[in-house]
Structures are given as structure tokens and as C-alpha cells.
């Protein structure tokens, strides 16, 4: 459970620190007229805060899987499976998708519609290509006899990659909505959507790096 505990300790540390900062030197029993700065916290758009919270939840999910992985692999029946070279290619594709959305984000800040559209297409296209790549990897492994139930290392490989792809699919739904806004030329909504998608893509890329690194090293 070390991985999970480290993640939670960091997160809880941040939460407690933030809360203490907000609450330490305050005298709640003193009445005063509201000042403008008190409304909301930093005036972030609620969807951005929501994405932050969602990423914490997803991190918790993957951290727990990583913990389970490291506990289970200590047992004697664990036999690592080969990592197909295609996974390196898929990693690169996912990285390009992340770059694409970063480009779209930059474009959105400067109201450059061409950059937004190209970036969105690159992000979405790379995500689809990544998923197709993962599917090919699975087929290859199944064909070589690495079935999901034949060894816990295999089981974890399929579960972790599958779960990662599912999260990417969820991201594609958001990306499709943002593309709709971009098509309609709604700048405010597009700007927010592109930013959220870009952050989510970067996040899933980092999650993939951690999972891939874990599977490579064991």
C-alpha cells in the first residue's frame, strides 16, 4: 500500500495545509461585512476545480492498482510477460496527442481557430491510434498464449491497460463536445473545453508512463 499511502499523504498534506492557511488566523465569531475577495476561492471556473477533484479520484484509483500490483507480484507464481515493442510506439503516439492539445490550448488563449482545430484533431486522432495500438498489442499477446487468467502478471497487464483505455474513451467524449463548440465558434466554451481536455490528456499520458514504467521494471 506504499504507493497509495504516499499519494494520499501528499494529497492530504496539501489539503490540510491549504485548509489551515484558510482557517488559522481567522476569528469566526467576529462579524464583518463581506469583502469582494471572499466569494469563491480564486475565482476558478467550477469545471476546472471539478477536473482537479476528478483527477485526484482517478489517481487514487490507479495508485491503489499499483499498490495491489506490487503486493501481488511478491508472491511466487508471478511470471513477467514480455513487453511488445509496439508499446513504445503507442507511448510516442500518446505523447504527440498530448502535444497537439497543448498546441490547441495555446491557440485558444490567442484566439487562433486554425491552431485550435488542428490541435483537437491531433489530440483525438492520436488517442484513437493509441487505442488501436493497444488493441493490436492485446491481440498479439493473446495469440502468443499470454491469456488474461494464465498468470497474475498477465491479468494486471490487461486490467491496467484496459482501464487506462477506458479513461481515454471518457476523455474522447469530452473532446467531441469541445470540437462541437469549436465548430460552432463559441470561444468561451471552446477555450474552457480545450484547456480541460489538454490537462486530462497530459494526466493520462503521465499515468501511462507510470504504468508502463512499472510493467517494464517488473
Amino acid at each position, binding site marked *: *500500500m506504499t504507493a*497509495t*499511502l504516499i499519494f*494520499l499523504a501528499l*494529497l*492530504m498534506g496539501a*489539503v*490540510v495545509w491549504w*485548509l*489551515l492557511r*484558510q*482557517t488559522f488566523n*481567522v*476569528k*469566526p*465569531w*467576529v*462579524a*464583518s*461585512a*463581506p*469583502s*469582494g475577495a*471572499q*466569494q*469563491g*476561492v480564486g*475565482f*476558478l*471556473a*467550477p*469545471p*476546472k*476545480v*471539478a477536473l482537479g*477533484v*476528478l483527477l*485526484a*479520484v482517478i489517481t*487514487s*484509483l490507479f495508485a*491503489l*492498482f499499483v499498490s*495491489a500490483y506490487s*503486493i*501481488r507480484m511478491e*508472491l*511466487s*507464481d*508471478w511470471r513477467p510477460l514480455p513487453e511488445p515493442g509496439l508499446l513504445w510506439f503507442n507511448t510516442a503516439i500518446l505523447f504527440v496527442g498530448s502535444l497537439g492539445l497543448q498546441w490547441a490550448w495555446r491557440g485558444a488563449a490567442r484566439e487562433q481557430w486554425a491552431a485550435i482545430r488542428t490541435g483537437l484533431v491531433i489530440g483525438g486522432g492520436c488517442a484513437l491510434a493509441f487505442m488501436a495500438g493497444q488493441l493490436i498489442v492485446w491481440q498479439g499477446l493473446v495469440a502468443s498464449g499470454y491469456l*488474461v*487468467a494464465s498468470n*497474475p502478471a498477465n*491479468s494486471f497487464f490487461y*486490467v491496467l491497460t484496459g*482501464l487506462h483505455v477506458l479513461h481515454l474513451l471518457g476523455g474522447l467524449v469530452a473532446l467531441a463536445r469541445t470540437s462541437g463548440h469549436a465548430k460552432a465558434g463559441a470561444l*468561451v*466554451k471552446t477555450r*474552457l473545453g480545450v484547456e480541460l481536455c489538454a490537462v486530462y490528456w497530459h494526466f493520462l499520458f503521465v499515468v501511462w508512463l507510470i504504468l508502463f514504467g512499472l510493467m517494464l521494471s517488473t
Partner: protein
Amino acid sequence: MAQVAHDAVTDADLRPFEVAEEPLYHPKTFIGKYIWSQDAKVIAIQYGITAIGIGLVALVLSILMRLQLGFPESFSLIDPANYLQFVTMHGMIMVIYLLTALFLGGFGNYLIPLMCGARDMVFPYVNMVSYWVYLAAVLILVASFFVPGGPTGAGWTLYPPQAVIGGTPGTGAGIILMLISLCVFIIGFTMGGLNYVVTVLQARTRGMTLMRLPLTVWGIFMATVLALLAFPALFVSCIMMILDRLIGTSFFMPAMLAAGEQTAYDGGSPILFQHLFWFFGHPEVYIVALPAFGIVSDVLATHARKNIFGYRMMVWAIVAIGALSFIVWAHHMYVSGMNPYFGFFFATTTLIIAVPTAIKVYNWVLTLWRGNIQLTVPMLFAIGFIFTFINGGLTGLFLGNVTVDLPLSDTYFVVAHFHMVMAVSPVLVVFGAIYHWYPKMTGRMFDETLGKIHFWMTFLGTYAIYYPMHYLGFEGVPRRYYAYGETAFMSDSAQDLNAAISIAAIIVALAQLIFIYNVIKSLFSGKEAGHNPWKATTLEWQTPHTPPRHGNFDEDELPSVYRWAYDYGVPGAEQDFIPQNVPSEEMAAARGQGETKAES
């Protein structure tokens, strides 16, 4: 006292939101208003009715269990398999589908926007979907009663390998439906939870600083944070167990013989499941307890006409309990054969978490001290909670110590402990909260006499049920047994005691009918409650309409908040309380001149 000068605030001083607020969606049809509703208050009531409905099923299951235990061999329709299924479903429904859903989905939805001074949750549509996904989870769970083999009988902890392997009741479709239902519940909860957290963080009205939030909101907020981070552990274990059960992976399933034959499983770790389960399971205790703590604080302050003692300490205690609750989980696993140093660590953390919890208890008692205590029905339940929680908490100190836990593990002492601390205590708060906010939700008062009868029957009755169980536990009577027969360790009186417990349980269960009758009857014939029958300070009592309409507050302007939620018994004030949205006269006068001075 500090004198803080504030400049008058004009709209120009306010930084605009990054994204313009979307106008509230106003439905026109009955279905849009009450079925596919996006109003948090309607969603709250939907959550409440569903949770209480499925909770009644679990109550009936517990009565069936008590009939068997009190009067063995008298009820032929309960066989050992049924008994285990009742135990399992009773536990799971009560903990997850009733208490978690009711506190967070029910009270969270109703109270967070109102108490923060918001028009609604920040994502009303997601909020609506959250309820319907929860309903789907409940229906999947209920469906498991009707599949061949029935629901799972693995105990609410669903420990493998016995949850999966033949011999345990409900290892067919029952366990699969249970696991799927839990996954669906967690997805639905995450949608709701995002809403609760972001609403508290971003949608508070002007002047509602974090340290002016009522403790109810603090409790629900921290419980939601815990749930968002802890439920993934249950999700992970459910997914892995579904795979073990359906496609034969060996995440948790060890090599074993079943009915004399070698199973296909090999090398899995049942202990891994226990770690994951309790990594969720212990924070779950506080997911249920923290909202109860918060609600009780507000009910006590309001009905004792006194400010809550040590508000800041109460807030920090909530945060500390939340953070600590993630490092005590293995105290549920002392008998799993863990390293003694591990046991020592978890016993220590368990005792440490008792410190902030005890601070809260002292502060509740000190709030009552020399208060103007009004023994209203909500207040009775709140005081009843303090008693019950102390009782249950103290037995927790016994069980938190490894050496005491080992002989008491899996006996009725444990059953008595957790029912006192996380079943009866939160349920008393649920009742207190419903009686407290009923006038706001419906615009009518409940019948006070019936409420008091309900309280005394429930409060005394639960003691009649659970006190004797401690004694049974000391005798070594094991839990989860269908029947005891002749044993060397059980005294003859133990069986009489079991019969008495069962009779008390039936009486308490029947007493709940009084509550349901009261709630329904008062809806039609209760006397008009007015806007603020309890003379409370928090914003939900200051709405222009009772019950509050969609949008909660005045159509043009949200309330501004000038003070904390605990200005009761203020010296020199016109009434003995000042609502949060009322500026003091000096402040209002100064504001009129363009300059505002705060008073202490």
C-alpha cells in the same frame, strides 16, 4: 475585540467569474420538476426516499435474523443459507445504500446549496444523473434477491475465497450482482461527490468564508472528500473479484481444494483483498460519522441557544479525523496473521484518532453546559447521539488494542461495538436531522408527541438490544452463527438473553412505523411551520419561501453573509439570535454612508 474596517463593496470590485454563470434550468412539466429533476432539493428527497426504502428492507432482514437467533428451530422458513444472506445484505445495505447515500446524497444535496447560499449545485445535470445511477445500483442489488441461488451470503466484507467459491450461498449470480451494484454505486457517487466538493469550494455566497460555514457543511464536505478517495479502493477490489469469479484470474483466489477437487485458481492473496477492502472500509466509518458530527453540532447549538464551543477546533478535528482515517485500516485485520509491529503501529494510530474525536465530544458537552436547552425532538435525538457515541467509542478503544481484540474478535462484542458507534449513533442523527429540517422541507411541523414516543422507544430500545450483546461477546459467543446448539462456553442465560434481544429488536423496528406515520400524517395535517420555527441562524432558514423554491433565495440577489452560524444568545440583540445574513445596525448604517465598520 478587533475592529476591522472594510470598504464598501461595489460590483466593480468583484472579479468576474472566468465563465459566465449559466441560468438555472427551469422545467415546466411535472416529470421535469419531480422525476428528471435537476433541483438539488428534489434530488435530495429522491435520494432520501430511495435510501430509506431500501433501508426498511435491511431492517426487515435484521428482524428475520433476530427471529432465528432468539427462537431457533421455530421458523422453518429461515435456513442457514438464508440466514447468512440476511446478515450480508443487511450489513451492506445499511452501510452503503442507506447511510452513505442518505447523508451525502440526501442531506448533502438538500443542505449544501442552501447553507452555502447557492442557487443549486454547480453541475445540476450531473447531479441528476448521480441519483439515477444510484437508483440503478439499488435495483441491481435488489435483483440479486430474485436470481437462482439468491443474494450473496459472504458477509458484508465479501472476503475471498469464500465469497467466490461454492459452498457459500449466492456464489452464482448473487455475488456478481453485488459487485456490479457496488461499482455502479461508486460511479454514481463520484458524480454527486464532485458536485458537493466543488459547490462548497466555488459556489459560496458573498461573505460565506470557510470559517463561517455551518459545521454540517464541514462534516459533509470532509466526508465527501474521504469517500471520493476511499471508494476507489472498493472499486478496485470489486473489479478484481469480478474477474476472479468470472474469468478465473487469481488476484485474490489462492490454490485450494473445493469439494475435494483442485480448483483452477493458483497463488492469489486473500489478504490483499482485506487490505484493499479495509482501506475503503475504515474511512467509510467516518464517511458516515463526519456528516453526523456536523449535523449534531448544528442541532445542539440551535436547540441549546448557545454558540458551538470551540468552532475552530471542531473544524480542525473534522479535518484531522479525515486525514487520520486513512492510516488505521488494518485494525480490522489483527487476526489475519500480520506482523506484530504492524499491529502495534495500527493500534497506535487508532488510539491517536480517538483524540480529535474526543475533542468533538467534549465540545458538544461544553456547548450544552449552561445552555438554554430546549428538549425538542431533534435535541433529544442529538443528546441521545452523544450518549450512544460515547458508549460505542469507548468499546472501540478496547477493540483497537491488539491483545484485547484477539479474544473478542468475531464475537458479539464487535457486533455491539460497531452497531453502537456507526449504526445507532448515525441513525439517531438521521432522525434528529429529519425532525430538525422537516419544517423547512415541507412547511409543516411534525407531531411532537409522536416524535418523543419515537425517540424514547428507539433510544431505550437500542440499548436493550446492544448492551446485552457486549456480555454475550465476553462469553465468547461468535457472530454470524445460524444456531449455537450445546456449547461448553455459553451459559444457559445466554439463550434467554438472545430471546430478550430479539423481542427488543422487534419493538424498536415497530417503533419506526410511528416515525413513518408521523412523517406522512404531518405532511397533510401538521400545523404551519413558518419560515424559521427553531429560530436558527443558518441561511436555509432565511429563504423567502418555505419550502424553498427552485433557486432557493430571492430571485434578484443571493444573501450576503455577515457572521458565523452560531450567534445564539447574543447579549443586547433584539432576539436571542442573529441570522447569518443580518448585518448589525451599526454595520448597516455605516454601509449606507459608504463606509462599513465591522463590530466584534
